[in-house]
């Protein structure tokens, strides 16, 4: 395992690169733009311009920017696994798209390869050819075991939700295991925060759809700081009571800020909770910015970049849908500068 001293170059380069990240004032300019075209014009004045060709869709430009960032980091960061931690969710997204396509494809129907993303560690073309030819052995993240088990699950009960759940479970297990193999405390804490965030989201979704405790357990993932058994027991409580349950955990502030003490309105407060949970993950690695050699700087930057792209996408979608500016402003993640 490399020591922190190996990260002198990488951290210095990140310090120089962070000047290109969007500060809140820059995001505000896009929010203030009159309409989608004006917002895209502001975006075209930044580093995103290189992906914004004539007629290109903005979501392709955002994906290309994130993909280029991952590739650039892979070239200079001593541990490639630090980037893979971010790429694993996209690999699993691609596997879900492919499997759903295979399971639900009608004879002669079109497969939705356009939904595949290039952000994963396995190029989409390779993934497609390996899955189609059933050569799973070369796939990473124990997909060689997971995909066949998903296929047999489909053959047994044709339940796509169960398959998605199995893939999510494997995905978080792989992320946690990869972070543990690196041994960097900040990265481990960040991955655990991501598991906690996903579990809290699932808790809220299940409450909304009226799940009871007995059915909830498979939807939670191991590896977070909040035990799955504790989350399962919270299903029967009202969301207001969760504030007390989380009060002594590091997620307490985020849950309290989003849920508050009054009655919980899912449609109004769910976006606030989503934002609070993303900000929680940002806060876990924020301290790395004071270190000149901490590998956690890589995690902080890449997470900051993902949040920047999420913010830009939110703004552009709202521009296209002509929703009000104040509502969009409230959905902005703090990201790298928070």
């Amino acid at each position: 395992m490399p020591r922190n001293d190996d990260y002198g170059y990488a951290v210095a380069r990140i310090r120089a690169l962070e000047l290109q990240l969007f500060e809140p004032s820059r995001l505000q300019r896009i929010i203030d733009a009159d309409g989608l075209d004006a917002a895209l014009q502001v975006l075209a004045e930044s580093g995103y311009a290189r992906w914004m060709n004539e007629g290109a869709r903005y979501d392709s430009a955002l994906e290309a920017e994130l993909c280029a960032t991952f590739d650039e980091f892979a070239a200079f960061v001593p541990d490639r696994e630090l980037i893979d931690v971010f790429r694993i969710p996209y690999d699993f997204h691609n596997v879900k798209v492919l499997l759903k396509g295979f399971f639900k494809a009608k004879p002669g129907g079109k497969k939705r390869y356009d939904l595949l993303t290039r952000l994963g560690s396995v190029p989409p073309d390779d993934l497609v050819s390996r899955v189609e030819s059933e050569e799973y052995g070369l796939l990473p993240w124990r997909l060689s075991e997971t995909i066949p088990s998903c296929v047999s699950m489909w053959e047994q009960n044709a339940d796509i939700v169960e398959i998605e759940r199995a893939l999510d479970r494997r995905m978080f297990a792989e992320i946690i295991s990869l972070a543990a193999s690196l041994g960097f405390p900040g990265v481990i804490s960040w991955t655990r925060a991501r598991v906690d965030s996903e579990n809290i989201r699932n808790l809220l979704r299940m409450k909304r759809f009226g799940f009871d405790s007995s059915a909830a357990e498979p939807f939670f993932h191991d590896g977070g700081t909040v035990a799955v058994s504790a989350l399962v027991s919270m299903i029967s409580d009202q969301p207001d009571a969760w504030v007390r349950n989380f009060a002594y955990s590091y997620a307490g502030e985020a849950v309290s800020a989003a849920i508050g003490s009054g009655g919980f309105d899912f449609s109004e407060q769910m976006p606030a909770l989503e934002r609070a949970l993303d900000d929680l993950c940002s806060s876990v690695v924020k301290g790395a910015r004071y270190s000149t050699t901490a590998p956690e700087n890589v995690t902080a930057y890449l997470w900051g970049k993902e949040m920047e792209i999420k913010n830009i996408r939110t703004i552009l979608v709202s521009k296209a849908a002509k929703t009000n500016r104040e509502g969009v402003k409230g959905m902005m993640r703090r990201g790298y500068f928070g």
Partner: protein
Amino acid sequence: MESIISTMAGQLGQVFVVLGAALAAGMAGSGSAWGIGIANEAAAGILTEDPKKFVSALILLALPGTQGIYGFLIAIIALRQAGIMGDASAVVTIWQGLAIGAACLPIAIAGFYSAIWQGKSSAASILLISKRPEQMGKAMVLPAMCETYAVLGLLVSFLMLRGIKVG
């Protein structure tokens, strides 16, 4: 046999001097190389994205290099005092040689450690100017704090050498 022992005893003073000089130049120089190497990584990192910061980065990464010069200086003074360089007529007793060798240690030790920490400090300052180039003054002052202790080591070594009389 006796003549061999007496010749060895006669030269042992100079051996201690050479050992001290080697430590002063070697340790302080190694520390400087180490420190510059640390600062160099940071400089290369920011220059990859912004080559215009070369001059500022060069000034900061050169700061840990002074300890190597101090060590070299003390080594030369020690060798001259013992007559190994220049005045070949000087005779150094074992105790005088031991004293000169010991006088080289402050700069050897302080130079070695302060250069490494100054290198880390310079690397941090290079990161500072990558974001705030207008803060170059402050960026230079911070690693210079480590320099204080290398200068004290140099001063103590110099004063000790000056105090040793070689007949």
